């Protein structure tokens, strides 16, 4: 949080929606995203660029929003973790983090997702070393990174079309209560 300053109008596209906001001219991008845009998925871990939790994409490039003045990125297209999914359809990277243990407490997850999505956009066949280089600015205290790297590799497979992209959980699916085919219609009188 920075001291009071004159107001200015800031415009940008966040997750494909355009915003025009009255912000402090010295406002940090992280504060604008969390407090004014309302993308609370962008996490504040350290304010010093040391943890990577606040990573967002600015015109496709991963960037630490806590080290970036909002004014520096006006009129850009910003993508936060909220913008990765296609409606209810999770992005492959999201589905794989959930499925392969890439997320435990989940606080660092948004930053990792954005950083790794940026990697996969550039390079759908990364080596483990390339993945490590892409996420080296992100700290995770729960997973020890191993399952994160596995998750990114699995997502890369979906990007390369080797594995099918999982369907959204909210898709219609059959009645969960089967009346089996051999369902007997019991005559009365067979109670205990």
């Amino acid at each position, binding site marked *: 949080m920075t*001291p009071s300053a004159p107001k200015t109008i800031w415009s940008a596209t966040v997750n494909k929606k355009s915003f025009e906001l009255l912000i402090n001219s010295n406002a940090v991008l992280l504060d604008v995203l969390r407090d004014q845009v309302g993308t609370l*998925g962008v996490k504040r871990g350290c304010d010093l660029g040391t943890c990577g939790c606040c990573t967002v994409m600015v015109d496709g490039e991963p960037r630490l929003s806590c080290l970036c003045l909002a004014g520096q990125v006006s009129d850009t297209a910003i993508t936060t973790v909220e913008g*990765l999914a296609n409606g209810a359809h999770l992005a492959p990277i999201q589905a794989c983090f959930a499925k392969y243990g890439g*997320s435990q407490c989940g606080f660092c997850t948004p930053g990792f997702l954005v950083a790794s999505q940026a990697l996969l956009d550039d390079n759908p066949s990364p080596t483990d070393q390339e993945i490590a280089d892409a996420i080296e600015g992100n700290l995770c205290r729960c997973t020890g*990174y191993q399952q994160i790297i596995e998750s990114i590799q699995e997502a890369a497979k979906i990007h390369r079309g080797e594995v099918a992209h999982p369907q959204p959980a909210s898709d219609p699916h059959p009645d969960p209560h089967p009346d089996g085919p051999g369902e007997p219609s019991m005559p009365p009188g067979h*109670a205990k």
Partner: protein
Amino acid sequence: MSAGYRQQPGNRSSKRTDGKRVAGKQVFPPPGSGGSRPVMKERDLDFIPESVGGKEPQPAGSHIHDRIRTGTVVGKSLSLVDSNAKVTGQAWYGDDVRLPNETIGKILRSPHHYAKIKSIDTSRVEALPGVISVATGQDAANSFGVLPVTKDEHAMAVEKVRHMGDLVACVCAETEAIAIEALSLFDIEWEVLEPVFDRKMGLEDVDEPIHWRGKYHLSRTNVQKRVFQEFGDRSLVDNPHAASHGKWSMEGVHHGFTEPHAVVAHWDPNGRLQLYTPQQVPHYTHRALSTVLDVPMHQINVIRTFVGGGFGGKSDPFPHEMCAAILSRKSGRPVRITFDREEVYWINRGRHPSDIEVKMTADDVGRISGFDIDALIDGGGFASFGHVTSYYNGVLATAPYELGSFHYTGARVWTNKPASGAMRGHGAVNTRCAVEVGLDEMAEQMAVDPIDLRLANLLPPHSRTITGFRITSNGMREALEEVRDGSKWDEKFRQLPLGKGIGVGCGFFISGSGLPIHWDPNRFPHATVHIQVDMDGGVTVHTGAADIGQGSTTAVAQVVAEVLALPIEMIHVRSHESDTAPVDLGSYSSRVTFMNANAAIRAALEIREQILNAAWDILGYHPNTLVLNDRRIYYKHDPSIGVSYLKALHKAQEDKGSLIASGAYRSPPMGGVHKGAAAGLAPAYSFSAYVAEVDVDVELGLVKCTNVWAAHDCGKALNPLAVKGQIIGSCHMGLGQVLSEKMVYGRTGHLQNANLLEYKIPSVHEMPHVVPIIIESCDPEGPFGAKEAGEGPLLPILPAVVNAVYDAVGVRFRDLPLTPDIVYKGIERKRKSLKLDDCLELPNPRLEHGPMQEVLVARANEHKTRDKARQRTEDTSHYVNGVLFGFDPNIPLEDQVDGWRMATEPDPEQLAELGLAGKAWLKKTQREMGRDD
């Protein structure tokens, strides 16, 4: 008895050779397959134990929960039930709670290490436009603390501040900028006192001890707690065949969770406090709030948000939670307080900086005749969990080994630094490292393989440790064997070139603390879970289990799904609010999955019984002959006779509507009766063994851990994916402590690295490749046999790395972390002592097996047979520590041996020879000194 309508079973094999079906038999699909559209999954025999007709191997015999296994979800790798919220950014953590009309709170922190507050003038603060409310220590005089015996904290300093960063006052304002500005407007008159930073000085008398415990205060020292324990026959340590003596200095480490603390408090229009906080232990916060705010507990609703990492660092009731509640009460508006990273380090509660001295001896047949441990731990400004830590440093270091004797002196002192507390592996990590390195050293003296030394001295399953803990299942032996084979130990140990090394370490940890902190376990259970099943068949589980990312919510959902044979998507866990959740003690001491899942199983069993009784009504077959499978209940001997789950449920609901059940878990009575017997007592214990490989840059002193084989006995892996995640994550955290992490206090006692740049958490590049190995010993007490997996796996990585560094360069390091400067100095010292020109000429250790090796291998093999026999749960009579030394387990040891001691206070003649922490026993309490104030 007539079985009602019954289809004639048939199968495809009953076809005639000409392809026509046998007359009178109709072929129909297997139950639940739904013809062309499957509606029921087949029973998954791979996940049902052998003892009840499945194919799952059972290492430990039949188990209490086997008969209710349905093969649905237990043992399968599942994603966490809340993971979709986390990957979409919708999981709401502390600072994500934004209530309408909120104000922003900030805390004024002490600029002094130790000072009395003579006066606080807040008039300039109140005059600042935009400031809503101000509070100081005068607004909340009641003290609190996580342990009832040591309530030594206040919402804000009442009389004096005890460390730099201690809370002095707080303010809430319309914006964060105004709140920060307001912090500079407090006018405070201080009387600066002489601070204590050195833990050794904490043992000395001072004018103004940091806290005052009245008649229990130890002279005028800063000793918060002292412990003495002695068990066994101390004469065994005379004339040792091998001995190790090590003095360790370990720096404090911090949990380093990524989410800073945050809290939102709001007194609703009904005068009830709604408090949102990322807490591991919401119930203790609930209690503390009630005490501090002087309102009954039912007037407070504690809402646990998602927790962005805990590791013990969010398990105390915190003063800032009280501050938010006080400010909100004054202002009538919601108050949100979020820490910056520096404040996270000020509140601390990390691992205690410690001085540890370990002496150990082995006799002429390679038995461990004695552990002698002395631990002086630095508690910082407050007690926190320290009372317990003081015990854990000793008692958790004994098992998994059978010991001839055990001697422990421990002391925890207050210093003017941020408070230490509980951190993953609470109290057990530092001494475990010292003990395991000591064993490595003794193995070298005896010219034996350190793994064989361990294998020949393990306690078997169903045994009693030297301090009286009840071990049930025990997978230690298998864990050691697995890592030995997996790492190709026999080809590498003492055979690698200079700079490359391999080392081993073991671990032993509690799976749930045996005693609830606030009550007698015989009068109220550890955990309670409510289950509700409504008309649609969905199951709502109400629990207070605090999921901090380890997946306890998922575990609870899994066990309920398993018992009721429902897909896990049909189980909905509600665990955030104290209003709807039954009391649970929270996520600490690795208790939550063990105790909560046990309670959930009991509740689910009640629901199951009601549904099966309804099916009995419908089908006419006794529940004993009915099988639950995916949303269908059928007759065991003829699966075509069955009823859907929903029909049975509706039948059961005919008279009472929703099915509701409550289940609880209470630990069985166990353990000794001596002072401190409850510390370290647990319904089950986990075991682990790691082998680590390191590369040491001999010229630069830089240590890189390259490979880790990590075997952990978690009883039964309810969710192998989560268990592996815990093992790798523990490895990461332990690796940080052994190689890079430390809280640096400068000459002035000031914390110098309160940020994530200089507090060096391993990044992805520092991580070794970890091979997680799950050992399933199937615990008789655990839920479906499970034990903990969250903390125990951290323990062995430290000694494994230290031992591997020795293997690589031949230098024993006893100062953690092994930063390059320490390693470089050690190597240089060794080079000079050997009068070598170049450190690259250093000889690294080699092993030629001595005569003892054969003795140990023979005993290890003998014990392996013994352990296998004891692994059957049918025989649970305890093997008593001491049998290896020739004692009769059926006669109390003290009646057999004159020298067998069990003491919790030193004899007067022992006082002269006590270690550093033991010196606390030279002081008298105020009461003993005749002062009763």
